[in-house]
């Protein structure tokens, strides 16, 4: 049976985004036999997502940043594949990672879409996990209405389809990522009614030193300023969406000014009507469950995200496991590529990064730290929630139920909350509500380690993607033969 096919490699790379492409290329060019597993149907990840190459064979990179870098990595990726050094398995999700006694990694696979799968299991001596991240979400009244999307989801829609998911948009949350999303919408012909940034841009003032270390980001900012001026996009700072309104889908939003803690300033509320798509993004959540399942050490990053700890070769504390990109701390594509190149090289030969590369990574890390501090999740974000506000979209658990479980039943961490309320037990397994549930569960707990412990316990999910019982029953549990 084809699902029992056994594949063995020197290096397995999970993810074909900026970090994964770079890692795969670096390893293959050093003579390692590499396999790349990716949920997408073509390389690029979310950052370089583009229309299907079966329809648009030569994408022009419009609306993309670093497209030249992509083309370079892609050419080297394709070359390695044609030399037989790199095996690319698209439309493939890793649902479990294990480490065998011999020190080899075992990856259990499931198709991302459909039922066809080239291999059910892949084994590799070294593993580079470059699983990226997704928009971090916070619940608020009306966020479950159709028409409400992740900010990155809107961007992915435009990049992948060449069309818009609506007509009139509001983009809200925090962080520089809201800017390219709004710019992409406007350039695709949509109306951006407002961009609501909860932070004050004055937050950047203490960090100008870190910002000047990465001048490319300032240029990118200037580019967006131009697009905003051309399309008359209103960029409102210290402003949040307090509620999305609509019967069966979003049709308007309420916005308000907030103070430095994120509390709504009375009398500043405004209704924006005729809005059919609302995009939210509060930074990103790195997707670290595969690394956590293998025992990777974690820490809380400057943005409050749980991320994995790596050394200067991108090596985790787990022998043979390397990590690159957002999983080591959200820092953008340039940093992800640099880390991927280091991780791929280290996985293949154990080599150290050059001093120049190490400095580049340091500069970008510093910039990311400044960005996270300038665009925090507002402290009082949960003031907007009513008892009825859904917190967990999959299992339809309300804020009232979560607060009751915390205050009356003692569910003071996300894992206990999960058992008591079913938050995070549905299809997405807490990817969407995990951060918010953890904040709400640990609220009032002054122990500095409580948030990390809560997030870390929640991130421990040995089964990382939904799969059928049939796939489990077909599992090949035979000992691998040496090859």
């Amino acid at each position: 049976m084809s699902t029992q096919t056994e594949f063995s490699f020197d290096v397995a790379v999970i993810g074909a985004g900026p970090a994964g492409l770079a890692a795969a290329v670096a390893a293959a060019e050093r003579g390692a036999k590499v396999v790349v597993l990716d949920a997408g149907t073509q390389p690029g990840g979310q950052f370089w997502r583009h229309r299907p190459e079966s329809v648009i064979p030569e994408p022009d990179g419009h609306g993309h940043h670093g497209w030249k870098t992509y083309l370079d990595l892609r050419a080297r990726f394709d070359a390695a594949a044609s030399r037989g050094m790199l095996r690319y398995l698209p439309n493939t999700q890793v649902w479990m990672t294990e480490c065998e006694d011999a020190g080899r990694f075992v990856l259990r696979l499931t198709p991302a879409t459909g039922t066809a799968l080239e291999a059910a299991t892949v084994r590799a001596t070294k593993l580079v996990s470059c699983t990226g991240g997704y928009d971090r979400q916070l619940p608020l009244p009306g966020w479950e209405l159709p028409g409400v999307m992740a900010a990155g989801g809107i961007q992915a829609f435009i990049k992948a389809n060449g069309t818009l998911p609506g007509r009139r948009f509001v983009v809200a949350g925090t962080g520089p990522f809201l800017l390219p999303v709004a710019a992409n919408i406007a350039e695709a012909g949509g109306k951006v009614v407002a961009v609501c940034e909860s932070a004050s841009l004055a937050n950047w003032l203490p960090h100008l030193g870190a910002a000047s270390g990465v001048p490319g980001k300032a240029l990118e900012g200037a580019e967006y300023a131009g697009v905003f001026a051309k399309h008359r996009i209103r960029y409102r700072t210290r402003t949040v969406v307090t509620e999305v309104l609509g019967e069966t889908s979003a049709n308007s939003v309420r916005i308000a000014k907030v103070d430095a803690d994120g509390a709504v300033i009375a009398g500043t509320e405004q209704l924006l009507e005729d809005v059919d798509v609302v995009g939210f993004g509060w930074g990103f959540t790195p997707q670290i469950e595969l690394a956590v399942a293998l025992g990777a050490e974690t820490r809380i990053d400057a943005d409050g995200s749980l991320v994995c700890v790596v050394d200067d070769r991108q090596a985790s504390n787990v022998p043979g496991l390397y990590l690159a990109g957002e999983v080591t701390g959200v820092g953008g594509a340039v940093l992800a590529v640099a880390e991927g190149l280091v991780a791929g090289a280290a996985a293949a030969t154990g080599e150290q990064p050059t001093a120049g590369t190490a400095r580049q990574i340091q500069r970008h890390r510093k910039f990311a730290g400044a960005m996270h501090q300038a665009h925090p999740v507002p402290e009082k974000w949960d003031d907007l929630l009513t008892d009825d506000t859904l917190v967990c979209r999959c299992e339809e658990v309300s804020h009232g139920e979560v607060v009751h479980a915390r205050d009356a039943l003692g569910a003071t961490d996300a894992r206990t909350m999960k058992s008591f309320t079913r938050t995070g037990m549905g299809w997405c397994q807490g990817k969407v509500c995990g951060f918010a549930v953890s904040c709400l569960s640990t609220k009032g707990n002054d122990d500095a380690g409580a948030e990390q412990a809560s997030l870390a316990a929640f991130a421990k999910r040995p089964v990382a993607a939904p799969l059928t019982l049939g796939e489990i029953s077909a599992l090949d549990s035979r000992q691998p033969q040496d090859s």
Partner: protein
Amino acid sequence: MSTTPQRITVTLNATEIRADAGQSVGAVLMGQGIKAWRTTRNEGKPRGLFCGIGACYDCLITIDGQPNQRACMVEARDSMNIEGDFDA
């Protein structure tokens, strides 16, 4: 530069429609003004695209008889049969 997109025909709840090749199932539905194609198990609330990149599973739909496919991830193909909780 950009070429005229190939056209495909897909079936949405037994209604045939024409769409551009290379779009996701989610995009084809949104192009028809359909924003929701699933209702939730407990409260029967409408759901469609949310995360847009395969993380949230809000956009699940039945494609060619196979349930629980993510509409944001599946590329629409000619003669594809798409069934969900929506009026085509």
